[in-house]
Structures are given as structure tokens and as C-alpha cells.
């Protein structure tokens, strides 16, 4: 199987760890923060990004030899924008509550730099099967980070863990009332924007410890 040799494995696993799109390539942070208030939003967002990134990588890699360099941005964006519109309409049809909660941020997948960045850096230079694997790896790397961030933000900020279901989300576990009675309090700051920045900063730090990468300056 040509698809599962060590090189392909590397294409998938590198972006999850040592070349993570969020913590090391610093791409796609915009949406990473906005959708991490609740775990279920982060999971749905991850699925949307997996779909868009894999398909856009494959499509752009198939047509890469026909794209004139000068207008490549417009072409890439229209491919990506069509895919995102599909996701947007699908969410509206099948997961209406979730699409309401994610509001403009589904649309903003278009401007998620991971997708554009991978198209420019990888899909336009490699064949479709490699491009697919690259898309898979990068979107999973993205998902890993936003799921971790949203887990902590929801648990400590709002005191719940919510999984996605057809409606408004299924509460898997919430902090029992007896804890609150004993004086436990949620950290309200984590739900607000500064909390998102700080948690993501710390997650990036930990992730880099694991990946063993440093940056100067």
C-alpha cells in the first residue's frame, strides 16, 4: 500500500505534534479562540475544518497546474468559499442550534489561515493523495489544540462539559452543587476574551515542551 508508507505517515503525524498548525506554524488562531467557549462548539468546528481542509487541498492539488500564479489567491479563495458555503448550509439544515451559536465563525473558516496556508505551502506543490493526508493531519492538529483549550475554558469557566448532539448540546458532566455550596467558584475570566488568549498561550507552551521546539525572540 503506497498510501501507508512512512512518508505518508509523517505527513499526517507531523502537523499533529512537531509541526502543529496552531502552536508552531501559528495559523488559524482567529477561529481557534472564538469557538472554544464550549467543548461541543469546538468539536463541530473541528469536523467542519477537517472537511473543508481535506477537500480544498485535494481540489486545489488537482487543478494546480492550471492556476496562473498572478490570480491564484482569488482562485483558492473561491474554491474554499464554495466549500465553506456548503458546510454552512449543511449546518443550518441539520444542526440549526449549533449553526446559530457558531454564527459568523463558520463563515470565517474561509479566512482561517490554515486552509489558505496549507493550500499555498503544500497543495499547490504536491499530488492529490499527499495533499489529502496533509489536510487530514493539519486539521487534526488544529482540532487537538482547540479541543484542549475549550475543555479547560468550559470546565473552569462555566463548570460543565458539553458534547454535541442534534440540539443544544448534551451536558456530560457539570460541577455538582455541593461544590459550589462548599465555596467553589467558576473563573468567569476564562469565558471572556482575555481567558482565551491566556489559556491558548499556556497550551502552546506545554505543546512546545512536548514537541521540543524553541523559537528565538
Amino acid at each position, binding site marked *: 500500500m503506497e498510501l501507508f508508507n512512512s512518508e505518508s505517515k509523517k505527513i499526517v503525524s507531523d502537523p499533529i505534534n512537531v509541526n502543529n498548525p496552531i502552536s508552531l506554524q501559528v495559523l488559524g488562531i482567529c477561529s481557534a479562540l472564538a469557538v472554544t467557549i464550549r467543548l461541543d462548539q469546538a468539536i463541530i468546528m473541528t469536523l467542519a475544518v477537517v472537511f473543508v481542509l481535506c477537500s480544498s487541498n485535494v481540489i486545489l492539488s488537482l487543478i494546480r497546474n492550471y492556476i496562473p500564479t498572478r490570480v491564484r489567491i482569488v482562485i483558492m479563495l*473561491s474554491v474554499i468559499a464554495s466549500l465553506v458555503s456548503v458546510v454552512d448550509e449543511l449546518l443550518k439544515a441539520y444542526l440549526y442550534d449549533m449553526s446559530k451559536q457558531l454564527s459568523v465563525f463558520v463563515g470565517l473558516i*474561509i479566512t482561517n489561515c490554515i486552509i489558505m496556508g496549507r493550500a*499555498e505551502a503544500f497543495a499547490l506543490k504536491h499530488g492529490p493523495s499527499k495533499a489529502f493526508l496533509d489536510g487530514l493531519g493539519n486539521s487534526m492538529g488544529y482540532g487537538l489544540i482547540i479541543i484542549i483549550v475549550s475543555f479547560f475554558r468550559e470546565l473552569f469557566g462555566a463548570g460543565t462539559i458539553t458534547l454535541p448532539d442534534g440540539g443544544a448540546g448534551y451536558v456530560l458532566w457539570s460541577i455538582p452543587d455541593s461544590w459550589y455550596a462548599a465555596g467553589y467558584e467558576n473563573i468567569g475570566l476564562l469565558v471572556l476574551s482575555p481567558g482565551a488568549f491566556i489559556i491558548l498561550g499556556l497550551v502552546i507552551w506545554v505543546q*512546545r515542551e512536548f514537541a521540543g521546539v524553541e523559537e*528565538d525572540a
Partner: protein
Amino acid sequence: MTGIEHYLSIFTKAVFIENIVLAYFLGLCSFLAISKKIDASVGIGLAVIVVLTITAPINWFLWEYLLDKGALVWISQDFQDTDLGFLKLIVFISVIAAMVQLVEMFMERFSQSLYNSLGIFLPLIAVNCSILGGSLFMVEREYTISETVVYGFGSGVGFFLAIVALASIRYRIRYSNIPPRLRGVGMAMLLTGLLSMAFMAFSGIDL
């Protein structure tokens, strides 16, 4: 509220209270990547102001006269119920991409040094969420054309302010003793968190 006061309040809101970077997390990718150098930050800040101020009104016209429900009545009454809203994303992003390519060509021609220092990030302005976000918020909040111009410009200034502030802080802490793996983006995120906390102080202002 009427006249100039109203516009002033939209502007102040866009710059400080609802800062597009620090409150809405838009445009963070270029925000973090470029803020290593102050002069490059000024460059991209100005580019964002220009692109936002131009694209928001253009998209406003497209939305008002082409895409919104019933927007096509100026052609004929038959289009009363036509709703092209689902094309919003594609149309907006194409306008933005075209504008960015124009700015890129313009910069390459007239300011080679700026062009070199912005490098790969210039095409990425097209996917700078703050630009598309500006247009989407303009639709969501139902601004008029003059409000849109003020809002676009204000958001651009907000981005400029935030990125130059972060670049200056990063410049100051160059020689601080930060844990090695926290250096760079990790530290920048923590600093942005503090900046954002500082900007939250403005949210008490009632305009």
C-alpha cells in the same frame, strides 16, 4: 443621537470597546506573526486600514443592491422575493481578494522595502479574518453606508493600534528571561491576553 456624535461613537466603539482583535479574535494570525517587528507592524496595520476602509463600503453596495432579500427590486418588481444571501461569503471574499491583490501590486511597484518585509503575509491579508469579519458584522448590524465607512475605518485603526502596541511590548521584552519554550508565540498570546484585559476596561464606557 444625531450627526457627528453618532459616527464618533461608532468609531470609538470599533477602536476601543469592541476592538476587532482583542474582543472578537479576528485577524490574529497576521497579528501574531508580524508583531515581531515594529516597522512591519506599522506597515500591515496601514494595509489593513486601507483594505478595510475600501472593502466594507464596496461590500455594503453589493449587499444592499444585489444580495439581500428584495435587493434586486431596482431592476424589476419581479425580484421582490429573490434572496441571494447565500452567495454572501463568496462575493465578499472575492472582492476582498481582488482588493488585496491590487494593494500587493501597488506596494510592489511603489514601496519595494515594505513589499519585501511583509513577504508571504501580504497574500494572507486576504485571509485576514478582520477584513471578512468587518464585512460580515456590517451586514449583521445593518449599518448604513456612512456608518459602514466609519466602522471599517475604525476597525482598521483598532487593528493598527493593537498590533503596534503588541509589537512594542515584544520589542521591550526581547532580553527578558522567558522560559525557552514559551518564547515567541506563547508569550505573545499571554501578552495579548493582558492587553485584551486592559481594553476590557473600556467596556464600561457607555456611548
